[in-house]
């Protein structure tokens, strides 16, 4: 067992060795769960209401889907209530104003117990943990629980929840042709895709359809408008449109030349 490092919990994960260290860089990573590859852990800041409404994928594996993301870890902030200390664990109810959820913190060494003795009922805390479900009821297995010292953190946490929600729901509607981070850049690129890899064109065409102005138009956009806007060959644009119709991203409206995005922005 490693010697205990009392530096606020970050190295707790290094010492335990049960989690890749990048998962502890939570404040930055929280809003940017852009790379959803299987090698990266995602930590998502959430309100308890989001958790209670999360779509539960699989009863046995306790996988949840929130805004199209399966978070490995969640970050919550709220008041502690009904703290109960037992031999192997400490449990309490966390209430963040949007709902409440049971939290359990397993204590296996003095670092853990010291961390939890500081927590009292009525106190605001931030916690990082794993979302679990047992017999239909959701609860959190906390890895770290820390008191809030600067109350601006409360405002910050809820802002992060909103930001992560926006980030993730936007990615959920984007065409997953490449990794999500690339999507953002391509949407803003002016069209110097002389090389015209078909993936690029498709994304750009889709992004035109998904602009709020395009979504607002009842009959969508005419193919010629897209051609004029992007300055690409008609053939390539029609190919991209065909692809999107096939996968269901856009649909034809009044005739075969008018298309509209199927996603509601």
């Amino acid at each position, binding site marked *: 067992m490693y010697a205990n490092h009392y530096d606020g919990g970050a190295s707790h994960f290094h010492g335990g060795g049960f989690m890749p260290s990048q998962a502890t860089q939570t404040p930055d990573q929280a809003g940017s769960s852009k790379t959803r590859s299987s090698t990266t852990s995602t930590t998502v800041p959430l309100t308890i209401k989001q958790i209670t409404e999360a779509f539960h994928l699989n009863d046995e594996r306790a996988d949840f889907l929130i805004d199209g993301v399966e978070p490995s870890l969640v970050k919550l902030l709220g008041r502690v209530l009904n703290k109960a200390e037992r031999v192997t664990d400490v449990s309490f109810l966390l209430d963040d104003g*949007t709902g409440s959820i049971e939290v359990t913190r397993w204590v296996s060494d003095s670092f853990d117990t010291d961390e939890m003795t500081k927590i009292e009922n009525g106190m605001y805390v931030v916690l990082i943990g794993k979302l679990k479900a047992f017999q239909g009821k959701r609860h959190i297995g906390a890895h770290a629980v820390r008191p809030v010292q600067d109350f601006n953190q409360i405002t910050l946490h809820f802002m992060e929840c909103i930001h992560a929600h926006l980030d993730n729901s936007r990615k959920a509607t984007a065409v997953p042709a490449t990794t999500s981070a690339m999507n953002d850049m391509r949407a803003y690129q002016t069209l110097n895709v002389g090389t015209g890899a078909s993936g690029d064109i498709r994304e750009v065409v889709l992004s035109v359809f998904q602009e709020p102005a395009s979504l607002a138009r009842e009959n969508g956009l005419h193919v010629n408008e897209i051609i004029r806007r992007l300055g690409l060959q008609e053939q390539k644009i029609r190919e991209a449109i065909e692809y999107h119709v096939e996968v269901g991203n856009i649909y034809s409206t009044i005739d075969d030349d008018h298309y509209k995005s199927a996603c509601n922005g």
Partner: protein
Amino acid sequence: MDTSSPTVFVNGELLKLYMGRRVRTVVQVIRNEGGAVVGQSTDNQQLTVKGPNQSVPVMHFMEVIGVADGPQSIRAEICTDFGSNFDMASYNGLCKLANGQFKNLFL
């Protein structure tokens, strides 16, 4: 604390929309008057907070969780001293977002 109903983030302006409901807000304490605290809301309105826990010093920020019982008054259940360093503008922005476009994340 009654956890069966969610508490809405409000500022002075939003308070009147949630009469009779549990709300939460932050005010800056202006003065203590007997059993009530007069505070300035995040959008510069004067709110009256009635109830226990009036031990927050003047000029400190105080979070109030309670029931809205008047267009500018709250019957507090819990008051928390938020110290002297709190960003009212950000909190005000949060109130607007939490009641507007992102209401579904909070309520």
